[in-house]
């Protein structure tokens, strides 16, 4: 008769909290754990790509395939760590870091012209041509003082995004 939350001890919760830099409260972690168990339908301890895609709102997202590469097969601790960037308490640095990781698909620590173009392709699909995308990107890069050949680092991202604030918050429902 035990509910899922009773399986997390105080120690577990504290461990997870530490892992996500205290960006979530204990109650939020309990809520997230219930959600994690709900999505992990086969109780394997991780959420598979297929299980993520069973949430229609997620499957419809233009970036879902890209995000799947980041979240596929995460255990609960890493799942919470991934979501912690969306906490209202997360700093601009942390939020920018997550955005940077989405762009940096080959994880080499720098984002090339091609990387940005690929994200742009996910976002605009067939509604922009390759030439249009390249034109847009070249133009805005130039105006910001970069060129097609320059690589953007995490610091560049923090500088560009951090200056005006990114609104990226999701509330964890607590019942």
């Amino acid at each position, binding site marked *: 008769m035990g509910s899922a939350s009773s399986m997390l001890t105080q120690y577990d919760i504290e461990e997870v909290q530490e892992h996500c830099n205290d960006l979530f409260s204990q109650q939020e972690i309990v809520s997230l754990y219930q959600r994690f168990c*709900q999505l992990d339908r086969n109780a394997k301890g991780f959420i598979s790509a297929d299980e993520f895609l069973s*949430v*229609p709102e997620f*499957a419809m997202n233009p970036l879902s395939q890209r995000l799947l590469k980041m979240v596929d097969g995460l255990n609960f601790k890493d799942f919470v760590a991934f979501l912690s960037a969306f906490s209202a308490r997360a700093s601009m640095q942390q939020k920018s870091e997550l955005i940077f990781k*989405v762009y940096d698909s080959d994880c080499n620590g720098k984002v090339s012209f091609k990387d940005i173009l690929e994200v742009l392709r996910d*976002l605009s699909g067939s509604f922009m041509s390759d030439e249009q995308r390249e034109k847009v990107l070249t133009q805005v890069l130039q105006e910001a003082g970069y060129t097609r050949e320059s690589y953007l680092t995490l610091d560049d991202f923090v500088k560009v995004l951090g200056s005006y604030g990114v609104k990226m918050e999701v509330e*964890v429902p607590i019942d």
Partner: protein
Amino acid sequence: MSSPGKLNSSSSELDLDRPNLEDYLPSGASIQQEPHGKLRLRDLLDISPTLTEAAGAIIDDSFTRCFKSNPPEPWNWNVYLFPLWCFGVVVRYFILFPARVLVLTIGWIIFLSSFIPVHFLLKGHDKLRKNLERCLVELICSFFVASWTGVVKYHGPRPSMRPKQVFVANHTSMIDFIILEQMTAFAVIMQKHPGWVGLLQSTILESVGCIWFNRSEAKDREIVTKKLRDHVLGVDNNPLLIFPEGTCVNNHYTVMFKKGAFELGCSVCPVAIKYNKIFVDAFWNSKKQSFTMHLLQLMTSWAVVCDVWYLEPQNIRPGESPIEFAERVRDIISTRAGLKKVPWDGYLKYSRPSPKHRERKQQSFAESMLRRLEEK
């Protein structure tokens, strides 16, 4: 759009299992406010709205909520209550359950011993046979309800038999059908089930005019459409019952109604069903348990408590589309039964959303990018 002609022809048909999700979703739900001004690098790099949406869906989504079983609150943790609970278990499993099995067995014996002769011997007297079979089906459904001590309260006038009307109800479990059937022998439209339920469907329930189909087969849809139209026009047919959600929902939410029932050109009589979860959760989570297990769960609980409201018949208003009509009826049912409405197609349980939804988001993104590029 490249295929307006194709769209028109399919919407004029009775599209039983593919409602247009777009018609229900508020337009531009994803764009909070249209950004203006010259396009800068930061605007391009800032993918936070899309990421926020994705993370929001991972953390909580209204679709999964619709199909979440809600077990009754455990109350036996207390040392004093625990023996009481144990006593309850003994009573439920060792006294109530065998008694209920007995009741159900007797019911089946009575039912079969009269149904078989009626069905085969009264071949020449169609009217009499139909009436008797109708009564017998109502009888066996009453036995089923008794086998879980169904405490059902019916509100409003009982359904009458007349042509050009169709009943629609919210759907929680196959027992909805049994509960409604014990009052009135409805002809129902349902998914074809495997196993013993399927056997009942194709033998006994066929006699009250029920229509079966397979969700996955497109050919079935056309046949069902035709059968539906023929059925509602027949004067002598049992009233038609449709569960327009097309799938079982946990009785806290209503998902989108398929528009099929609302395109028949007859009056729609809404039926609202609300279960009281005090003893058992009546939601049948067909992915988690078989119908037999679901019935066993009901038969080992204290009782199934529910309210049924027969609501005022509704007609399509001039200028109202079938989808708007379906929404209006869903509104009436949701309000009466105290359910929340969500803009989801219940069939997404079985399939992924079509790429159309993603394309719409991509389109609005691309348009905004291109427009802002022009702005200087």
